[in-house]
C-alpha cells in the first residue's frame, strides 16, 4: 500500500483523537479519558511519521527524544502547582522554538519553492520568533527571575514602531529575494528582539492575558509551519491550539473589562493614580473575634486571589472549610476569572488542596447568592472585589466585573497591610461598614482560626 496514503490516514485518526481529547475536557469527569485519547493520537502520529519511509537516520532522533522526554517528565513531576503558569509559559516557548527550527531546516534544505511558501515561511518565523522570547520573558516574570513590574523607558513606543517597520521592510525584501539567507536571519533576529519588548511592559496582574495570547501564537506558529512543510496535521492542530488561546484571551479580557490591545500596548501599571479623597479608617478585627462570627455563620464564601498562592495558604483554607462544614456551615469558593496568574489557576490550587470541585463557583454563579451569605473571606484578592468598579467612573478598573463580596453580611479581608493591590488602586471595600480587616500573613491567620475552632471543640 502507498505509504503516503497510510501516513495521512493515521494523521486523520490523530486529528479525531485530539478533537475528542478537547471535547472530553468539557467535564472533570471525562477529562482524564480525554487526555489519554489525545496522547494516543500523538503516539500514532509519531509512529506513522517514523515509519513513512522518508526517515533514513534514527540516531539524532533518538538523542532528541531521550533528552526531550527526560526533561519533560522531570519538569512535569517537579513543578509545584503554584508554578504552573511559568511551566505553561516555558512550554509555549519550547513549542514555538521547535516550530522555528523546523521552518529553518526546511528553508536550509529546500529553500522556498514558490511565493506562498515564502510568505508562510516569513509569517512563521516572525510569529515564532516573538513567541519564543515573549514566552521566555513571561516565564522570567512569573518565576520572579525578572521583576514582575512593567519595564518602561522613554521612546518605547517609537522603538517598537521602528522594530515593526524593520520587520515589515525586511519581509518585503525577503519575499522578493527568497534566496537571501542573511535576510532570513535578520528577520528571525528582529522577531526575537520584538518578543522581548512586547512582554516587558506588561505587569504581573495582566499575565493571564499574556499567557493566553502566547498560547494562541504557539498554535498559529504550528499552523504556519504546517503550510511551510505541507503538513495538514500541523494545520489542524495549530488551528485548534490557536482557537484555544484566542478564546481564553477573550475571556480574560472580558473579565478585566479591557481590550487585548489595551493589555498589550496600554501598560496598565505605569500610571499609578493616587486616589484622592478623605482618609477613612478601615476597621480591624482580632482572630478571636473573627472566630466568634464564623462560629455562628451558616454560610461562608472564600474569595481567593494570587495572594493565597503566595502565602501557600490553600491547605489551611481547606482545613478551616472542613471545620466550618462540621459546624453546620455551607462553604463555597468564589473564583474570579483573572484570579491568579493564568486562567483557572485558583481552581488547580484548590483542587490540589483536596477541595471538592463542586464547591468552586464561577463569578456569575456566586454573585446572585452573595446577599444571602453570612461571611465572605477575601484571601489574597484585592482588585477583583473592589466595588469601585461598579460606580466610580474615575477608577481605572471601572466596569470590570467583580465578585460582590461587599453584599455579604460580613466581609473579612485577610491582608498583610493596607498597601494597595497590583494596579495601585485604593479598595473602597475596606472602608465599608460590614468589612473587617484581619492583618497578618494569610496562612498564619487561617491557621489561628483553625486552632480556635479546635480548642472550642475540646471544651
Amino acid at each position, binding site marked *: 500500500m502507498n505509504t503516503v496514503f497510510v501516513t495521512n490516514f493515521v494523521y486523520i485518526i490523530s486529528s479525531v483523537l485530539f478533537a475528542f481529547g478537547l471535547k472530553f475536557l468539557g467535564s472533570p469527569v471525562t477529562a482524564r479519558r480525554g487526555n489519554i485519547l489525545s496522547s494516543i493520537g*500523538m503516539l500514532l502520529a509519531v509512529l506513522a511519521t517514523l515509519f513513512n519511509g522518508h526517515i533514513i537516520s534514527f540516531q*539524532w532522533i533518538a538523542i*532528541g527524544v531521550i533528552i526531550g522526554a527526560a526533561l519533560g517528565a522531570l*519538569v512535569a513531576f517537579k513543578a509545584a502547582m503554584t508554578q504552573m503558569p511559568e511551566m505553561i509559559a516555558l512550554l509555549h516557548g519550547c513549542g514555538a522554538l521547535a516550530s522555528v527550527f523546523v521552518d529553518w531546516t526546511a528553508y536550509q534544505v529546500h529553500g522556498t519553492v514558490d511565493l506562498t511558501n515564502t510568505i508562510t515561511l516569513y509569517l512563521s518565523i516572525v510569529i515564532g520568533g516573538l513567541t519564543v522570547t515573549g514566552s521566555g520573558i513571561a516565564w522570567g516574570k512569573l518565576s520572579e527571575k525578572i521583576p514582575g513590574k512593567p519595564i518602561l523607558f522613554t521612546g518605547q513606543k517609537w522603538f517598537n514602531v521602528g522594530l515593526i517597520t524593520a520587520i515589515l521592510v525586511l519581509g518585503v525584501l525577503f519575499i522578493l529575494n527568497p534566496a537571501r539567507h542573511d535576510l532570513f536571519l535578520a528577520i528571525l533576529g528582529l522577531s526575537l528582539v520584538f518578543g522581548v519588548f512586547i512582554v516587558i511592559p506588561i505587569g504581573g496582574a495582566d499575565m493571564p492575558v499574556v499567557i493566553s495570547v502566547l498560547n494562541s501564537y504557539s498554535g498559529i506558529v504550528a499552523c504556519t509551519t504546517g503550510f511551510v*512543510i505541507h503538513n495538514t496535521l500541523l494545520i489542524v492542530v*495549530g488551528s*485548534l491550539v490557536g482557537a484555544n488561546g484566542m478564546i*481564553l484571551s477573550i475571556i480574560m479580557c472580558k473579565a478585566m473589562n479591557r481590550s487585548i490591545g489595551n493589555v498589550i500596548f496600554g501598560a496598565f501599571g505605569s500610571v499609578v493614580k493616587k486616589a484622592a479623597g478623605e482618609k477613612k479608617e478601615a476597621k480591624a478585627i482580632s482572630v478571636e473575634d473573627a472566630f466568634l462570627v464564623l462560629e455562628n455563620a451558616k454560610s461562608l464564601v472564600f474569595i481567593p486571589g494570587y495572594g493565597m498562592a503566595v502565602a501557600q495558604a490553600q491547605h489551611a483554607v481547606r482545613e478551616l472549610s472542613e471545620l466550618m462544614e462540621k459546624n453546620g456551615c455551607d462553604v463555597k469558593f468564589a473564583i474570579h476569572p483573572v484570579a491568579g496568574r493564568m486562567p*483557572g489557576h485558583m481552581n488547580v490550587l484548590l483542587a490540589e488542596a483536596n477541595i471538592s470541585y463542586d464547591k468552586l463557583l464561577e463569578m456569575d454563579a456566586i454573585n446572585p447568592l452573595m446577599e444571602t451569605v453570612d461571611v465572605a473571606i477575601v484571601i489574597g484578592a484585592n482588585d477583583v472585589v473592589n466595588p469601585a468598579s461598579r460606580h466610580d467612573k474615575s477608577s481605572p478598573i471601572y466596569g470590570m466585573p467583580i465578585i460582590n463580596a461587599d453584599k455579604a453580611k460580613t466581609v473579612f479581608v485577610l491582608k498583610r497591610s493596607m498597601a494597595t493591590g497590583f494596579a495601585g488602586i485604593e479598595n473602597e471595600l475596606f472602608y465599608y461598614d460590614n468589612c473587617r480587616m484581619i492583618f497578618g500573613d494569610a496562612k498564619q491567620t487561617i491557621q489561628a482560626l483553625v486552632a480556635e475552632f479546635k480548642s472550642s471543640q475540646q471544651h
Partner: protein
Amino acid sequence: MDLISQLFILALSIFLGFALISRVPPLLHTPLMSEANAICGIIIVGALMAAGADANSPLTIFLGTAAVALATFNVVGGYLVTERMLKMFKKKG
C-alpha cells in the same frame, strides 16, 4: 496538497476549535492550556522529518535534533502535567 484545500482545512479546524473549547468550563482552564501545549508538540512530526532526513549539514542536524528534543519536551511535559492536574479534581460526597 494544494493551497486552497489547506486553507479549507484551516477554516474548518478553527471553527472546530472554537466549538470544542468554548464548552470547556473555567474550572479546567489550566489543564486545558497544558493540554493545548501537549498537542502543540505535534510539531514533532515536522521535527522528526527534519532530524531524520539524509544529506544533512551540521546546521540542519543541530536544528533537527533540537527541534525533536523541544517538541518531545512539550509532548511529554504537557501530557504528564495535564494528567497530574486532572487527577486532583475530585468530587467528594
